[in-house]
């Protein structure tokens, strides 16, 4: 069980761990987009406009947000 730390060079081990860091990234991005979409849908319902402006605007913002999040998470940490 303590094998990886002994057999695998330290650098390679860190590599595995950084892959692990990104395992939840896809789900988080989906979650962000969905959350923005639902927020827009809900707000449209509350405001009651004829045309679902906020659903469209916020879903696009959600996609942009998930991209920003992806960029932020994958950029090297200082």
């Amino acid at each position, binding site marked *: *069980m*303590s094998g990886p*730390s002994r057999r695998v060079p330290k650098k390679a081990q*860190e590599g595995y761990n950084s892959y692990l*860091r990104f*395992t939840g990234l896809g*789900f988080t991005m989906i*979650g*962000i987009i969905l959350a923005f979409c639902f927020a827009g849908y809900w707000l449209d319902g509350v405001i009651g406009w004829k045309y679902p402006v906020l659903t469209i605007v916020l879903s696009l913002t959600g996609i942009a947000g998930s991209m920003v999040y992806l960029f932020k998470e994958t950029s090297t940490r200082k």
Partner: protein
Amino acid sequence: MKILEEVDPPLRDESYLRGRKQGYPPPVMSIPNLLRAASLLIGSLLFGAANAQHEGHGQVPQHDVVDSTVAAVVAADTDAPKLALEEAEHGGRFDAGKLIMGHIGDEHGWHLWGHTTLPLPIIVYNTERGVSVFSSSHFDHGHKTYGGYMLHEGSIVATKAEDGTDVHHATIDEPLTKATWDISITKNVMSLFISLAILLFVFIGVAKAYTRRAGQAPTGFQNLVEPIILFVRDDVAKSAIGPKYMTFMPYLLTAFFFIFLNNLLGLVPFFPGGANLTGNIAVTLVLALITFIIVTVKGNKHYWHHILAMPGVPGWVLFILTPVEILGMFLKPFVLMIRLFANITAGHIIALSFFSLIFVFGETNAGAGYGVSVMSLAFTVFMTMLELLVAFIQAYVFTFLSAMYIGAAVEEPHHH
């Protein structure tokens, strides 16, 4: 040839050992290695066999070959879906979906073998009726009512029917059911207690051994858990959290061993295993919630500053980034919850599906059932092996990601 040499007694004496000491590569195909491999294989076959017996009870097609042929012809008919549905309702045909869902879900009472079920306590709180405590055996495998309650599709519902009424003649009392809170000791809760008992027994014993035999070589269970503890400390806590890792070691170790043990117990097909505890979303929810609470409570100024107003980011990006970061705060533990739940449940579904194939094919033709069982068994053995690996990997991933989130929360500010 290597094997024969190994059996040869003279070769196993000192000259052989000297050879080992002088740095000759150890023989790959040695007898102990072969024995190990064989015992693993036999063990997993037994696993499979026990699984088969377990899954097969009651569902093994009762009708003979002629009947099944008739059934096959009927199935080809246009009315087949309706007929199949009717038959399924009367419990005549094998329903793989029902079997699998029954096994990955929770139940009141622990099915042991055949018609033997370990009854478990039912604890129900109703805002009108108060608390009721009785044994799940009163429900007679969900066929009877008791104490104003009965089982409907696995969950407890309220009824006004008298005790001992057949459930088909009892009606569900909707308003009363809504006022009912089921806090029974179900199969999963029982499994939780068992795993806690095992963990406490092992770790109190090990902790005592460390104080009693301080500075000496580890013995017994110490040998088993020490490498894993060191693995969690060095490769998980230290690498992900940094210098403050010691504060979080108790939680990380508890989470790791709890998940690992319950993943393994879930793979054992018979009592006291077989409950799908880490594949229960309520359990993974609580685990993820603990991580979330630790991160939120222990988060320092630096962490909150990064979430609410990321330094070095222009204002208009912050407009998007801050909501995203706040969402991420909740989504990260959410993903942690889903990952463990989905991985363990998927493993159980796949293993059970391979087994169900035997009975699905066996219903159309007995020969096909036997034929498929060979492949089915092989695949199930393979899946069980894979699940042993997954049991460890998922425990590791959960612990590591928890450690990473904690690490981000307690990280000291760097000099930009």
